């Protein structure tokens, strides 16, 4: 059987796409579970008669492994998938997770997915818009929040009010393993993420790696902000900002004492610094990365 390809064009990708990794499942409340393959992480809810799955993981094999992990805790079918954002590595393979499920996503996320046309990424069937949506799905209340541009397009964070948990994919991590920070919108990123601290929750579920608590989340926001400041200082003080080693040296030196204990700090801080300092050199990327947000070329998505 040929796998859904996402954006891949090479036939040699079939084995990669088909691989089903072992999944680890953890119960977070009576109805809420989290699943990880060791890197990516998703959440699902066992509702009255069905399962509500957030995201799909990043390949057909991983989506099937996700479905199998869900099946180890319930025999209820997956009838709803909610996309946290548009990226293929989190929301690319609904066709392999649950072909006939209703797909819920933010309006702009849906537009980008339709435009992308990636094989295996189902176009959303139910659209939400605005900053806050409270949906009742199969007896479960789900609160979806979009505070403004953070990562990807049409990014939704999930607030589990009763359980006091927050799930946000590819925004804040419990460690420093951000790499080159792909498709992050730094103009308002930290402000928008900190807005979640106005809510009452005490457990944070990121889209990758380990869970953390409110203090870990707040420290994650502080970490990103500290890099933003250190990068500006590097630029201001004539560090050659386009070169890896000098940027690594400057920002590592500034932040190692306070954040050096974060897993992945030494390996990732240079890449993060290169990315973030260019925000100040170039001014942010597109309308999404301006104080008010927005989208150029919207007419292309109609």
């Amino acid at each position: 059987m040929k796998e859904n390809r996402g954006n891949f064009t090479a036939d040699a990708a079939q084995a990669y796409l088909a691989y089903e990794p072992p999944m680890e499942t953890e119960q977070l409340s009576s109805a809420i579970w989290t699943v990880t393959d060791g890197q990516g992480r998703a959440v699902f809810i066992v509702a009255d008669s069905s399962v509500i799955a957030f995201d799909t993981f990043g390949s057909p094999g991983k989506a099937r492994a996700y479905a199998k992990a869900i099946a180890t805790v319930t025999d209820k079918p997956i009838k709803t998938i909610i996309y946290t954002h548009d990226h293929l590595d989190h929301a690319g393979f609904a066709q392999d997770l649950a072909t006939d499920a209703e797909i819920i996503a933010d309006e702009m996320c849906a537009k980008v997915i339709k435009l992308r046309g990636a094989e295996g990424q189902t176009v959303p069937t139910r659209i939400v818009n605005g900053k806050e949506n409270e949906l009742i799905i199969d007896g479960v209340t789900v609160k979806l929040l979009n505070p403004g541009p953070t990562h990807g397009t049409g990014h939704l964070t999930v607030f589990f009010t009763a359980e006091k948990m927050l799930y946000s994919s590819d925004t804040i991590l419990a460690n420093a393993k951000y790499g080159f920070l792909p498709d992050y919108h730094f103009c308002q990123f930290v402000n928008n993420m900190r807005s979640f601290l106005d809510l009452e929750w005490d457990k944070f579920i990121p889209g990758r790696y380990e869970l953390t608590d409110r203090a870990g989340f707040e420290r994650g926001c502080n970490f990103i902000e500290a890099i933003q400041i250190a990068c500006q200082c590097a630029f201001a003080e004539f560090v050659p900002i386009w070169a890896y080693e000098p940027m690594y040296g400057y920002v590592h030196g500034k932040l190692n004492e306070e954040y050096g204990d974060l897993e992945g700090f030494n390996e990732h801080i240079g890449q993060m610094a290169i990315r973030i300092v260019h925000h100040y050199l170039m001014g942010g990327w597109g309308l999404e990365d301006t104080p008010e947000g927005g989208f150029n070329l919207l007419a292309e998505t109609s």
Partner: protein
Amino acid sequence: MSDNHDHAPCEHCGIFTVAAQYGGNIPIQGAWRDITYDPVRDNIWTATDGAHRTIFVEGKKGVIAFDTFMSPGTARAYTAAIGRVFPKKPIHTIVYSHEHLDHCGYAADMAPNADIIAHELANKVIIARGSEGQLPGTEVWEGERKSYLIDDVYFEMLYPGPTHGDGNAAAYFPQSKVLFMVDTVAAGAGYCTLFDWHLKPYISIMRRFLSLDWDIFVPGHFWTLTRKQFIEVLDYWDSLNDFGQQAIIDGIDPHNWEQLNSYTNEKIGPKHAHDFRYYEYAAMNLSRYMQEYLSGGWGIEGNMAPNTNPF
């Protein structure tokens, strides 16, 4: 400004938020940098600070300058450089190539009273950004192609579709057979992680320019290129499409810096290790291309089907 290039009392800050740490004046913003200049062809000149490059064109009464360089200090140095070539001719027009601050951020320091030509997509971002020192366009154009005859200088502005940044447009001088475009094609592997590039449509869109008659390409960085070199650079980026997906198939983690460099040297090095700035940027280039397959293109601009029609 005094003759010994002291900093002005308070420089425009762009989008920096740390000015208070430096007594209100960020050191690099006011720093003077020598701008060198050379004739390109006919009335077209090129200027560079060693890394960034742009063009300026002599008109009958004044000068049309493209872009502003990356800081208030370099913008002033650019004005001074133009003044050395054309001491009696003021800069009456600035043309923005796109909206990024490192190329178009400081018109207020360069020629605050000049007319500013910008594509509407670039201008929207400039207005929304509100960066200190970056002036919005006074003559905003739309669509794909617009001809200008200003002060006896004829040129065409061409917006080919999403490539890099927003509203990134080329300037075409058909009588001189010169094409100028910023942050799209430049020598070697010189663009880090391809910041704000829209990779899905990029190569097809850039090849549209091959339908025009030109033999000198002036990029936004480093040195001018021939038509053949322009094509070779596009071929390099095209090859990264294949390397990007192969790297994922081969199990490379795009965030693992050591692994990424080792893999890049093994796979891309044999053909490109002698390319300009290969060792600085090829691994970063590859990392960005891998994301195209892992996460998909980014946003609307990164997912559009390219218009491949010739100009």
